[in-house]
């Protein structure tokens, strides 16, 4: 049999998904490059630093990995919540409060080395879980729209956090609004010298595997996924839809909270967040790029981290603001999440493939 490899429509569809994401990213980056090209006075230099800057030195690449850590946490958090079809934006507030909780544990408690960051991150995770569960509970219990309530909740968390910073944690001698310095027992140590890459990377790698197993190998993960795909079907097949929604928000929130805690303990010597860090929304981009699959989240997070650091380096070397990345992000969300983007082309491929198979059968 000299048969060509037989493709089913399903495999074409799966391969096409990858192709679509790549095209979307290419379009988004092309738009950014054009913008840079036309607004900059030194366009070639700007493009050079934007695209290759992160690879130019170990420190620059270290920065990419540093940013990769919180972005992966955020992506995992959103992936779990979005898989349940809950557009909960409270990951932002959970990230913030997780960082705050970790800072409180770091500053106010004396614990031995090794135990201290573990306790701090656990406290952060619990706080994050509580924050994200609130919109979920309101949704399940009263049908309150989770998008609006979670957006409002973020502001409340921000003001709560700045209150705690100002009245509980403030170190007046710092010279700016910040907590006391974290004791050395609490901070996460740098594991790769000269890069600032801290122990959080081990934790996040572990969590990627754990969340993947949770979503695809446990009955809870299964319940979350079918609830997200079709709530009525889930209900009729005996899944407790309400508790599943809340469970997914608890898990997502815990991941975001732990992310905030890890970020604060790994990157700073004091807590000084006075605005929302924005990682919650970054998580949305990452999760969409990863198709809400925890296994692809690190890839998407690395991509975004590379883009951000590239833009930062470019803005330091040339006259372009790093916020140009925002345009790339918006386009990626719009195109990757667009169900009809390149849809006609996909149909043509599938039809062509089926016709070829039919011809082969007739020929045989």
């Amino acid at each position, binding site marked *: 049999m000299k048969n060509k490899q037989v493709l089913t429509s399903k495999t074409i569809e799966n391969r096409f998904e990858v192709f679509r994401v790549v095209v979307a990213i290419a379009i988004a980056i092309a738009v950014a490059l054009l*913008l840079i090209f036309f*607004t900059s006075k030194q366009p070639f230099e700007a493009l050079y630093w934007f695209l290759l800057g992160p690879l130019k030195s170990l420190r620059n690449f270290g920065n990419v990995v540093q940013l990769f850590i919180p972005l992966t946490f955020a992506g995992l958090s959103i992936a779990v919540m979005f898989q349940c079809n809950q*557009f909960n934006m409270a990951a932002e507030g959970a990230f913030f409060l997780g960082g705050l909780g970790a800072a409180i544990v770091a500053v106010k408690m004396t614990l031995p080395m090794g135990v201290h960051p573990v306790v701090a991150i656990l406290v952060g995770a619990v706080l994050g879980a509580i924050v994200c569960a609130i919109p979920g509970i*309101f949704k399940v219990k*009263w*049908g*309150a*729209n989770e*998008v*609006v*309530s979670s*957006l*409002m*909740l973020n*502001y*409340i968390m921000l*003001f*709560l956090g*700045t*209150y705690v910073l*100002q*009245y509980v944690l403030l170190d007046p001698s710092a010279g700016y609004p910040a907590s006391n310095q974290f004791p050395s027992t609490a901070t996460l140590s740098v594991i790769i010298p000269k890069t600032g890459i801290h122990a959080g990377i081990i934790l996040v790698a572990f969590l990627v595997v754990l969340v993947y197993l949770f979503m695809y190998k446990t009955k809870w993960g299964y319940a979350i996924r079918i609830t997200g795909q079709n709530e009525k079907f889930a209900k009729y097949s005996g899944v407790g839809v309400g508790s599943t929604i809340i469970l997914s928000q608890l898990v997502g929130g815990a991941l975001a909270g732990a992310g905030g805690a890890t970020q604060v303990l790994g990157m700073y010597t004091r807590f000084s967040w006075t605005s929302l860090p924005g990682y919650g*929304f970054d998580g*949305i*981009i990452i999760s*969409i790029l990863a198709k809400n699959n925890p296994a692809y989240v690190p890839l998407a997070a690395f991509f975004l981290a590379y883009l951000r650091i590239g833009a930062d380096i470019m803005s330091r070397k040339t*006259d372009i*603001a790093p*916020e*140009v*990345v*925002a*345009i790339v*992000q*918006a*386009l990626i*969300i*719009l*195109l990757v*999440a*667009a*169900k*009809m*983007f390149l849809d006609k082309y996909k149909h043509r491929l599938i039809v062509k493939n089926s016709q070829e198979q039919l011809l082969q059968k007739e020929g045989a």
Partner: protein
Amino acid sequence: MQNIISTIFSASFLFSILRLTTPILLAALAALITDRAGVMNIGLEGIMLCSALAGVVGSAYTQNAFLGLLFAMFIGSLLGVIMAYCALNLKTDIILTGIAINLFASGGTVFILYSICKDKGMSTSLASLTLPSIDIPLIKDIPFLGTIFSGHNFLTYIAFLSVIVIWALLYKTPLGLRIRVVGENPNAAESVGINVRKTQYYVLIISGILASLGGAYMSMGYMDKFARDMVAGRGFIALAAEALGTGTPLGVMGSSLIFGAADALASNLQVLRVPVQFIQMIPYLLTIVGLIVYSISKSRQIKKIYLQK
């Protein structure tokens, strides 16, 4: 305590309520019109921010405040069209479309601001104009009421007039009827020959224009320049105001006034010995409480209807 009560009932406090209600009301009406056609527009925050910048840039380059406003409205409707194209043609989830618009706006406005005036925070170096304040003849001479209702920014009056316009549009025109049918049941609408997609295109454009008026007010009325992230969640509060206003223009006006009052109260209570953060929280807490109350009453209504059957 005496102090607070006298502030609350002063004419200048009531004046500031109307002033702070303006952007929320315009955005809430924008939320209302799309919601009635079954589309949830989360992108209001971003549309407001972009048009705030557009108004400043437009008025600075033309040296005409109204041309600046027109440019803001153009940008607002353009964003409405983009959202409609993505959500209705490309089938991107409407909530994700809104999030994308917001992300684009918060970074994109800074990028554009920096490209134009090499400043990432404020548009101070642009000689932009503000829209005029209007004294209403006769009313301005009435002692107490005159100080409350007269002398507001042009867009404040437009905001309250829009309540009537949107009411008339929804309940007195064929388009309004189509909008309501599409929102109630798109399949039924389709079956009687209503073009659902076209109707939703219209509402997203109208919504973009209303939100752009709110955005222009921020940079050409409330303040006299653009500042990064100056909309500060008002587009999101508007979504809550819309939910709380039970989906009617008058209800939306009422709930917007509540949020405007909470905002005004927050800036007036800062003299008290309460930590400022708790006062800043008030509008957002109120939003969540309002949302829950609204959702409970709505689910009771639905239960009632089922029981009657």
